[in-house]
């Protein structure tokens, strides 16, 4: 009997604990005092937490700048951050729900990933919030959602820019081969490159693939050489891409590489001199001579003691663009803010933004070449 009683007491305590935990949930929400205007859904935990940090610092720097220039609607801009765990759809739905239902902000930055955009559009495309995203998947602004604003050009533009540059500047349009990682990133890149080539009446000399994290690429490189390629469009992850260009250099192969990640920091560090001459279509490189970019880089490094990356710049721009649209709308009304995006112009770090009806605000990528170990902007391509 004694044993039973203690057991019951314990159970009662446990029950009390659980109900207390449940009861605190709504209280947390009610505790927020002033209504922030922007909610940010970004990766703060999980495998994407590192890029999420750059994302957050970009937003924070933009807020500092906006508030120094007078804030939004006459008040200092306030934002709330919610973790969406990167490409985790359930995490993103929860973060978006919380921003919409608890924080009730009219504008949301993020989710960033195309798949989390697709997952949350059912939730947010009801006229209660506008989402700004850097997601580049083609469907993001083609799903019929009227409340998405995209601040980067889509994947097709990236592929198209590389192929046109190869044809016009390198005269290698008919001597181009494709080499891709056999996963969702590489496969979809490869498909877009081949499609863009077909649109120009071109056909790749060879299409080779590798498994992510392979170490030896000599067989595929030999095939690409035998096919007579002058340019290889490489759609691989940064560490693999670095190994590939290094091995190509060791074998003394005659072709150049072009691709999506060939200007990123991790790639440059690992590839060393093998990266020389590589071409990429990229949204942002810190070496861009554009004075706005240079000022941004300097201030970012001062504040955060690290170099900015494409995430920092993308979401710096997105925050500034959002603030401009809210100011132009003159209120926190969602419909007016969405309308204001149609007229707001902003010369940002990534591009000169101007939004169309579908919500695409950026049709630009930079063609970047690696010279002396540094990415150098060769041309800005606009469509």
């Amino acid at each position: 009997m004694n044993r039973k009683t203690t057991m019951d007491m314990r159970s009662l305590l446990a029950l009390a604990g659980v109900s207390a935990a449940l009861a605190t949930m709504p209280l947390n929400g009610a505790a927020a005092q002033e209504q922030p205007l922007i909610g940010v859904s970004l990766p703060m935990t999980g495998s994407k937490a590192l890029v999420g940090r750059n994302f957050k610092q970009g937003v924070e720097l933009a807020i500092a700048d906006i508030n120094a220039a007078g804030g939004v609607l006459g008040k200092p801009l306030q934002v709330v951050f919610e973790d969406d765990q990167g490409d985790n759809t359930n995490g993103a739905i929860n973060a978006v729900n919380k921003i919409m239902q608890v924080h009730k902000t009219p504008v949301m930055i993020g989710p960033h990933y195309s798949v989390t955009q697709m997952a949350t559009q059912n939730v947010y495309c009801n006229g209660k919030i506008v989402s700004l995203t850097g997601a580049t998947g083609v469907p993001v602004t083609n799903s019929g959602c009227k409340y998405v604003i995209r601040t980067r050009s889509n994947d097709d533009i990236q592929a198209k820019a590389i192929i046109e540059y190869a044809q016009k500047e390198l005269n290698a349009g008919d001597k181009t081969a494709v080499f891709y990682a056999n996963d969702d990133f590489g496969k979809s890149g490869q498909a877009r490159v081949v499609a863009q080539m077909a649109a120009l009446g071109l056909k790749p000399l060879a299409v080779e693939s590798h498994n992510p994290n392979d170490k030896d690429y000599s067989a595929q490189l030999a095939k690409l050489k035998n096919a007579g390629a002058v340019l290889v469009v490489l759609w691989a992850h940064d560490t693999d891409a670095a190994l590939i260009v290094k091995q190509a250099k060791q074998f003394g192969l005659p072709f150049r590489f072009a691709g999506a990640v060939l200007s990123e920091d991790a790639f440059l560090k690992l590839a060393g001199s093998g990266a020389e001459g590589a071409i990429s279509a990229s949204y942002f490189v810190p070496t861009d001579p554009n004075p706005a970019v240079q000022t941004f880089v300097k201030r970012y490094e001062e504040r955060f003691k690290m170099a900015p990356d494409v995430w920092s710049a993308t979401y710096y721009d997105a925050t500034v663009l959002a603030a401009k649209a809210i100011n132009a709308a003159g209120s926190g009304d969602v419909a007016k803010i969405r309308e204001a995006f149609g007229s707001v112009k902003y010369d940002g770090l990534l591009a000169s933004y101007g939004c169309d009806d579908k919500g695409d605000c950026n049709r630009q990528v930079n063609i970047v070449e690696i010279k002396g170990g540094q990415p150098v902007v060769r041309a800005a391509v606009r469509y």
Partner: protein
Amino acid sequence: MSSFLRPAAWLLIAAAIVAPIAMGMNTYYLHVLNLAWIFAIAALGLSVATGVAGQIVLGQAALVGIGAYATALLMMRLSLPWWLALLLAMVLTGAVGAALGLISTRIKGHYLAIVTLALNEIFRIVAVNEEALTGGPMGLRNIPTLSIPGLSETITQQLYLPLAGLMFVSYALMIVFHRSALGRELRAVRDDEMAAEAMGVNSVRAKTIAFMICSLWGALSGGLYVLLVGFVAPTNFTIAESIKMMLMVVLGGLGSIPGTMLGAIVVTILPEALRDLQTYYMAAFGAAVVIIMLVWPKGLGVFSDWLWGSFLTGRREPELSAPAGPLSLAAAAAAASSALAAGPALPETGGPLMRVHKVSRTFGGVRALNDVSFDVIRGEILGLIGPNGSGKSTMINACSGVVHVDGSIELEGHPLQNHPAWEVHAYGVARIFQNVRLWESMTVLENVMVAWRRVPGQPSGEAAIREASLAALEQMGVRHLAMRQAGDLSFGQSRLVEMARAIVGRPKVLLLDEPAAGLRGGLVLELSTILQRLRAQGMTILVVEHRIKLVTSMCDRVVVLNLGDLIADGAPAAVMESPAVIEAYLGERADAASHETRARRIRRRSVNHAVAPG
């Protein structure tokens, strides 16, 4: 006190569940709770496969995913109504589960866990690459969602109560299943698969059913997710999600079905409740999990099991006071001898019941049995003796279907050799093991109930099984232990429970591998009385025993094995005098000493054996 506490706790829970919707809580919280209900259903399947049946599944997210994609595609491509799509998706996923179950009979333990992990990865790769069907990495969107207009305005609100209700119904179903005959079989397979098979549990069927249940609940949960959210993508069903569901089961206490519900609720809600800690909230969640596991090593199941009370455990037998004497075998033996005196005459001893013909078995280079042939006569107690390593246990294993052999073993003309152990048990062969093998997490009564066997002309059904099992326990003098957990018993008690488990199915042949091992000296002769009584009830007994005293007192006949060869077969006294037996035991030539002294030495020697059984 507890009679008032439990209903109060349930009232509180009912209020906690209805309150959010009644108070008009906003849809963010409702959505989190909806996810908790849905994940609780997915984890329920895992709880049955891993917690109840002991099959580690690390790919539950894949099964949920198959259910989700199937529901979505059936609605989108074939325009099926939601309920039909959901049902078909469950059937399809159930088939995948059945396949997994068949694989699990070949691949076991950790290897199986890795196979299920691979299933998860295969699912992801197919979902990412079969873009035409699955929508690729971007997933499927604009899936028709389930809307119940009468209930409220948004889908999240409309589905809140139905989902919560469905979750409780599914848990109630599985709790009833847990204590059903099939549930007992699954738990027996988890605790000791070999013993389960030998006591009549078809482990292939049991595991297949476990995996099917696992995938059915997974599919239901996946389908409900689709109906709620209207979107699926491969990133919904990653290995991390599988691990999360496993965490729900472990946090709820492995093996406790009600605990899994609480585990799922904690794992889904706690991170959201901690969100305001920003960067560190997942770390705080991890710390909370560690604390829960430290405070309640058996997980949250202790509390939830209490909540469900007798609904979980079934009707409990009133505890009987233990009869006098440490094992109460004396009482049973007294009952047995009076029953013997009053009971029917011994059955006709007559023709052979079981025929062992030229049975051989080698383990590597060791010939454990070498063309052994003997008959077991109906109604006799046959002793099987021999020095260590002579093949006695192998013989018992062969007769009970646990090891495969060359040659033939027949019971009333049915071949038994190389049949699965559960079929052998169904023919009417039951056994005990040399080292007691009870299913330790189950109660004594459940242990016995698992081994019940359908006998034509005898009543069946849960109540009859229970009666028969209690009677068997009574016969062994351990009825007062019926509600104890088998793992808590002393060795001697376990031995008697194992005996009860062996006789509950009224076997034709009872195989006893050293039944007296672990019993105190005084109890040994009482055991002999009990065996006499079992024989009187119509059982034929084959007993392996070291103690010659016991063998001579209870056996009608003895066969002797030495190094895999049958060296003697006959009445106990005659066999003891056989030169071959004396040589086998003493390792000297038969003419070296007088028969009388040698026979005495054998007795002494065999007692030494019994001290250190092996």
